[in-house]
Each structure stands twice: as C-alpha cells, then as structure tokens.
C-alpha cells in the first residue's frame, strides 16, 4: 500500500475541511439569512462543483493559477513558488471543489433555526454574532457535522481535479485515488485492491458513524 499517498490524502482532507469550515460559516450564514435579490447567483456558483465535470473545474483552476494570471503572479511574488502541481494549489482546488458539500448542509441547518429564537436573543441584548454562537450554531450541530464529514470524505475521494491541478508527484500531490489509478494502469491489482478497500472502509465507517451520532443524539427539538 502507498502509505505516503494515504497520509497525503488524509492531510489534504483535514486541511480542506478546516479551511472550508472557517470559510463556510460566514458564507452559509449569509446564504441562509440574506434578503439580497442576487443571492440566487451566489447559490448557483456555490453549487457549480456538483454538476461541473472535474476536468472543467480543474482546467479553469489551472489557468487561474498559471504564471500569466494575476493570482499566479501574486502567489509567486509572495511565496516564490508556483501554484500548479503543488500541495498548496491542490488545497485551493479541493476547497473550491468541496464547497457545496460544506455550504449546503450548513445553510440548510441555519435556515431551519426558528426565526423567533433568533429574535428572542436579539431582544435579550445579544448581538448578531453572539446570537450565532449561542443559538444558531448549537441548534445546527447536526448540519455542521454533516458538512464536516461530507467535505472530508469527498476530498478524500476526489480524482479529476487533483489530476488536473496537482498532477502525480509522490509526496506532494499524489493522493490515494491517483495512487490506485497508477497501480491499476501498471496492472498492479493487488496493492490497488488493498488501497481501494481501505478507502471504501474508511468512507463507510465515517458516514455510518455520523448518521449513528445524529440519530442517537437527536434531541426533542430536532424532531419537528
């Protein structure tokens, strides 16, 4: 088994999940509560990775990160390295590619919190930010957990975008899904089978754990 690829995938998935949580909380809050007319445009952009072929997303990301794009140039002048075929580039691509898997459960959970509870908190003197952390987030824990797990599992399993943006550099951008692909291409079925079984097992366990937790800890107020 390619332990280096497995470690890289787990590290990438963890960083992507953390980055998306930080990015996702305010964005999902905005999507859940904004009354702007153009909110639907943002919703559409967030959902795009669900329907776009990974190659299309990867292609545009590659262009955007390239040495001739503003992003590519800014990155190079700041860090002295290029984004394509680097772990950092892979992380940016993963964050974008998993965006809907974090945002949609979060926004749905926030929007389902009773408006009256939020207003009650405001009338008791709590700011919008403190109301979020004291009322909205605790009542949305199931949605937040779902977002974390889906993002982690989805990043662990991504292939197309990784191949387009990251390539196949062992220890830097070679993730577990690409390792499996390589092994199959090289007719190395035995190690490919072991790695695939591991990925299958991990994905199943993580999802089963999440749903079991949601069911067990379901509190009366989530049973509407």
């Amino acid at each position: 088994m390619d332990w280096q690829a497995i470690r890289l995938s787990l590290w990438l998935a963890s960083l992507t999940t953390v980055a998306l949580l930080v990015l996702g909380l305010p964005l999902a809050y905005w999507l859940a509560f904004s009354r702007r007319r153009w909110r639907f445009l943002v919703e559409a952009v967030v959902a795009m990775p669900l329907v776009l072929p990974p190659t299309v997303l990867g292609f545009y990301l590659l262009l955007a990160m390239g040495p001739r794009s503003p992003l590519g140039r800014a990155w190079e002048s700041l860090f002295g390295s290029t984004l394509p075929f680097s772990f950092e580039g892979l992380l940016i691509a993963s964050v974008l590619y998993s965006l809907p898997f974090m945002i949609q459960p979060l926004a749905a959970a926030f929007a389902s919190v009773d408006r009256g509870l939020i207003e009650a908190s405001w009338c008791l003197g709590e700011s919008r930010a403190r109301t979020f952390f004291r009322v909205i987030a605790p009542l949305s824990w199931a949605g937040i957990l779902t977002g974390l797990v889906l993002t982690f599992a989805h990043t662990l399993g991504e292939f197309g975008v990784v191949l387009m943006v990251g390539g196949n550099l062992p220890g830097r951008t070679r993730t577990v899904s690409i390792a499996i692909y390589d092994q199959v291409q090289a007719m190395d079925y035995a190690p490919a089978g072991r790695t695939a079984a591991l990925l299958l097992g991990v994905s199943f366990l993580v999802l089963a754990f999440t749903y079991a937790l949601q069911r067990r800890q379901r509190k009366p107020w989530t049973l509407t």
Partner: protein
Amino acid sequence: MDTHLTSGRPFLQAEAERRYPGGPTVEARFEIPEPGFSITVLFGPSGSGKTTALRLLAGLEPVDRGVIRVDGEMWSDAETRIHRPPQARRLGFLSQTYDLFPHLTVAANLGYGLTVPERPARAAELLPLLGLEGLGDRLPGELSGGQQQRVALGRALARKPRLLLLDEPLSALDRPSQQRLRKELRELLRTLDIPTILVTHDRTEALQLGDRLVVMDQGRVCQSGSIQQVFNRPTDPAVARILGVETVVLGRIESIADGMATLSVGTAQIHAADPGSLGWQVFVCIRGEDVAVERGCGPGPGSTVRNRLPSRITGLNPEGPLMRIGLDCGFPLEALVTRQACQDLGLREGDEVCAILKAAAVHLIPHD
C-alpha cells in the same frame, strides 16, 4: 427618570407606520403617558396588525414612516433613518410561541440576557417568584405549557426591561390556566412596576388585564383611551363591532347568595349569576341585544327576569333596522332593539322607561 415629566413628553410615543409593498400598511399610533406600571392593551381581530405594531416597537420591523420615542430616546425615526436595534432598546419581548431556547436549561434561559456573574443570583431570585422552584435544571421541552409561559416571561423580565411587550401571552394555554395566570400576571407586573404593552384578541383578557385600550382594525388604530372610555364611547360602529359588547362598567359585588351575586353599579343594583371566585371589583359587561325596554317598571309577575331598572332615555340612534337606545339607569346602559318596537312604544329622549335584563346576560370580569 423624570425628564419626560418636566418636558411634558409622554413616556412612550409611537407615530409609526410599516408599509408592505403591494400589501397592507400597519400603524403603531398611541402613547403611554407615564413610566411605571400600566398595561396598554392592543386589541383587535386577528390580522388587524397588532403583532406588527408590537414588532415595530421592539425594533424587529423597520419603521417606514414616523417616529417611536421612549423615555426621552429616539428609537425609530424614518426621516433621519434612525433605527435603534432591538439589542439597544432594553425591552422585554414575549412572543406568542414563547421561543425558549430548546438547548438551554430553564436557569440558562432565564439568565440568557445577563452577564455570566449575574446569572445564578438572578435565576435563584426569579425561580420562586415564578413558581418554578426546583425546575432550574430542566429543559424547556420537559415543562408544561404554563411553566414554559412563566419561564419565557421570567426571561423577558430578568434584564429589568424599561418596557415589556407581550404578544398574546396566554393564548397557547387552556382556559382554566388562562384564568389563573391572568390574575397572577397583573399582580406580578404591578409589583415589578414595568410599563407593559399587551396584544390580545380576547375581550375578557383585555378587560381583566388592561388599563388602557388601543383598538386596531385592518392595520389602523381606530381608537385609544381608558377601557371604560373606549367601551362606552366607541368612536364609530366599526369599533363597537370589534368590541362586541355595548356596556362595560365597573361594579362592586355587594353580596353573594344562592349562586346569585348582587352588585352595585353606579347608583343602581343589579343581579348576576355568581361566576365563582371573583374579586370584589368587576367589569360588568352587557350586550345591547340582551337589554329590553318597557314602559312601566312594576314588579314583573310571572317573569324570570331579575333586573328591572328604572331608566331615562338619553339618546336614540338608528342603525339600519335597529335602534340603539342610550339609557341612564344609575349607570350608562345601551339597549339594541328594532326600530319598529321603538316606534310602537313611541319612545323619545327623556322618557322614563324600564330596562329589563336577565341576570344570565350579565357577564362579570374581575378587575382588581
């Protein structure tokens, strides 16, 4: 605290409108003259805009026109685009659904709006006051409806608000609990000395709890004033229709015997069915259609009617096929009869007549 007195400004002054594009306009237009305990009731049928008016005061809806001024502070001013957010109004707001935080215990709900060090002491103070001893560690889902109502009220009171807003606070409860809690609520608010605005569509609740009445219909404030003023001098038939009862006067129960209460109302005495436990001070409510008028006022042999009151006609107002007769029988009383009957008896203003009223048609509402 006394600035409003010296400047002659009322404690609360609302002249505000909320306009829904393509929909109705709702106004909040009334005053509370003084700080300290008083209950102003926003009364009207459902859909009349009472809740929206309350939300304008809470700052939960923007004011599209006009101003809301409280205790010398500008809370909302559409012209200068002042909108003090609900967080900065220091008010207590109790919605119809209570909106208790389901993930927090009773004690945590009570202390929600306080700083962390203030919380335990205030919870310990409020729990017995609200009759919730020993329930501090429960979750709201484990409480009865009446207990939830008291937690929600306690939470709104915990921060010692300057103004308390109650939206149908008892409507989610069963009738016996409503009866009991109404009395408790008024006493509690009087003790705490907080000006309160209460929304209700229940006439009994309005009469039992209110000091001042603001009648709303279709988003408009039709009339406001003391309870007796509004009930006895509705400015137009719409208000009278909403109030649904023509005569409301304060009376005192003098004695109770054999299930019958004898009351003194103004200079008259009337009989009514004893409704059980009541204070001595009551609102006496009589519908116009329950009052009949006769020429002579002798004892009616063979009649079940207990109240035969010598009266003088003070006014005759035709209303379609009906005639509203204003009577003075020691207190102002209104009768609603057909115009034909009125003509047959040849009734005129100033005539001495007899007002006839079944004891069962006299509705008593305690008001201590």
